[in-house]
Every structure is written in C-alpha cells, then in structure tokens.
C-alpha cells in the first residue's frame, strides 16, 4: 500500500519540522516548504494527498494558493487542513469552497490532532 504524502506549508521551519516529525511517526510521509510559490511547485510535481497550510505566509497568501489549486482540475480535490494561530477568525466562514476540511489552532491542538485530521481526509 502506497504511503500517503502530505505537504506542509509553514514559514516557521522548526514548527514545520515538528509537524513532519509527528506525521512521519504516524506513518505519513511529509515534507515542508516556507511559502506559497514553493508550495505550488511541489504540488505540481508530487501531487500530495493532503495539504497542511499556515495562513500568514511571506509573499502570496494561502488563499491565492488555494485559488490556484482549485483552478486545476487534477489538483482541485486535494484536501486542506489549516493550521493557524488565528483559528478563531475562521469560525463560521465558508471554507469548503477552498477545499478546507479542518481548521486547527496552533495554540490549543495536540500533535495527535493533526494526525487525526489528516487520516480523516485521506482517500
């Protein structure tokens, strides 16, 4: 069975490393990039099974990235987990249009919450 692959888009490299370590310990392959432009390159070439995205990034923000992804039919179905310090700002927002399945708060989540959220959206 193919190991699932998750792309993490997070500009705090130590936090990205921490996410990757947690996911890999759970049997999920993961890699990280620090901004949306690099993310698009990896998404194009490696077609991840899911994305973990921070909201505030240097350069184009994640909604630009999500618009871009949604405009490609072969990428549009990739599920997205938002992982942000501002999770409260997304309460009640219509996120489904962007493919966002779950919003995790960096300040309250347990490392296991990310694993659970990813496993829930994997095909």
């Amino acid at each position, binding site marked *: 069975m193919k190991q699932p692959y998750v792309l993490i888009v997070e*500009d*705090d*490299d*130590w*936090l990205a490393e*921490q996410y990757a*370590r*947690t996911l890999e*310990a759970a049997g999920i392959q993961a890699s990280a990039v620090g*901004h949306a432009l690099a993310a698009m390159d990896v998404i194009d070439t490696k077609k991840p099974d899911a994305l973990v995205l921070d909201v*505030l*990034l*240097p*350069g184009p923000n994640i909604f630009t990235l999500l618009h871009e992804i949604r405009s490609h039919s072969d990428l549009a179905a990739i599920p997205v987990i938002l992982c942000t*310090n501002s999770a409260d700002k997304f309460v009640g927002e219509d996120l489904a249009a962007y493919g966002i399945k779950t919003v995790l708060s*960096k*300040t309250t989540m*347990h*490392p*296991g919450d990310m694993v659970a959220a990813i496993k829930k959206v994997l095909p």
Partner: protein
Amino acid sequence: MYMKGLAGNAKDGLYFDDLSFAFTAAHELKAPLALIRQLALSLEDGTGDANDKERMLRQITLTAERSLRLTENLTRSARLDDSLFTLEPLNPQQLLEEVAHEFTPLYKAKDREIRVSSRFRPMLVVANRDLLHRILANFTDNALHYSGDTMPVELYAGKRESGARVRVGVRDYGPAVPSKLWKNLEANLGKTRQALHMRPQSSGLGLFVAGRFADAMNGTIGAVRHRDGATFYVDMDASRQMTLL
C-alpha cells in the same frame, strides 16, 4: 500609557495605542509559545529518537530565549520615558561582534550564517550600549526569519553624511519584498523623519520598539530594499571624541 509610533506621531505614521500594542504583543508571543508547546507535547509523547529529542530540547531553549528578548524589549520600551540612560562613545564594530556572537547559536541551529563586515578603522557612535544592542539584536532576529540559507546575514557599520552620522545595519539576502509593500514604506518615508518597514506577516512591533530606542538616542531607523533582500539600519551621531584630542 500612550506609545508614540516610529514616525513620531499618530497622524504621519504607524502607531500603537494601548489596546493595539497589547494585542500585537500578545500575538507576537503566540507563535513562539505555540512552538514550545508543540515541542514539549511531542517530548511528553516520546516522539523521535535520542537525536530528535536533543534537537527539540535545543529548539525549546532557543525559542524561549528569543521570546524573552521580545518581552524584555517591550518592558524596556514601556519604561523608556521614565528611565535615565547614559550616552557614550561606542565602537559599533565591537557591538556588532557581540550581537553576532550572541546570535550564532540560533543561526547555527537554523542552518544560517551570520558575519560582521570588518573595517580597518571603525568610527565611534554616541549611543546607549544597551539600547543600541537591542536595536541590532532586533534587526538580526528579523533577518534570520527572512534570509535565505545560501548567503550569510551581514552586520556592518559605515560613515554617513560627511562623517557626522554612522550607519549601523543588518543586511539579509532573501526573497525580494513585494513592491506594493515597499511603496507603502516609501510613502511613509516621504512624510516622516523616521523610516519604517514591515515585512509580510510582520506586525511591525519589533521595529516599533527599535524605533523608540533609536529615537531616545537621537537615532533614526530605516530600511533599504535590495533585489535580493533588505538592509535594516540605524543612523546614529558619530562621536566627535577624536576631534577633541
């Protein structure tokens, strides 16, 4: 407590009132605390091998130290008006060496390099050692976040305006700052005597505090955009000590 902005007044530039200052400070501290918490939870869960655990502990220490620097700067900034501080002739080169030495462990842990551009005859500046150190530490910390991993961050000091002022700066090599953001900066520069630059995702709080420290020493902070990064600097009065000899 009312805190003036970098521009010196609320009308001309960015400023923080009591509420937004507290909100922004809390927000700035949220990210490092969240990282420390995630690392600590992973250690509790027993994630990773011995090398991973050692690395996580080191990251916790360095992140906590970084956060403490911010809280100390905020405290110092809030009490700036009440405190007396000494202005004295300082060797900026020596101060830059100290800052570089202090940040080397953090840079090394992030696989980055920091270096001081050497000068044959460094000029002295009139400044308070603690405040100038804090300004340069702020710029150096900022550069770490935005620099790429292929070029070192450079700390330097150089003469300005026929030797009357000395520019002490931190040059990073990273992604170019979007022109829209820079236009906002230039608009501010045109109207105000203090230069302010905020990067994407930055609240500007660190620079706000650095600006207050500079202002207290008759200094001016600013930024220069480069094709491949940016320089953040503080212009200080040059010491005339040598001319009196």
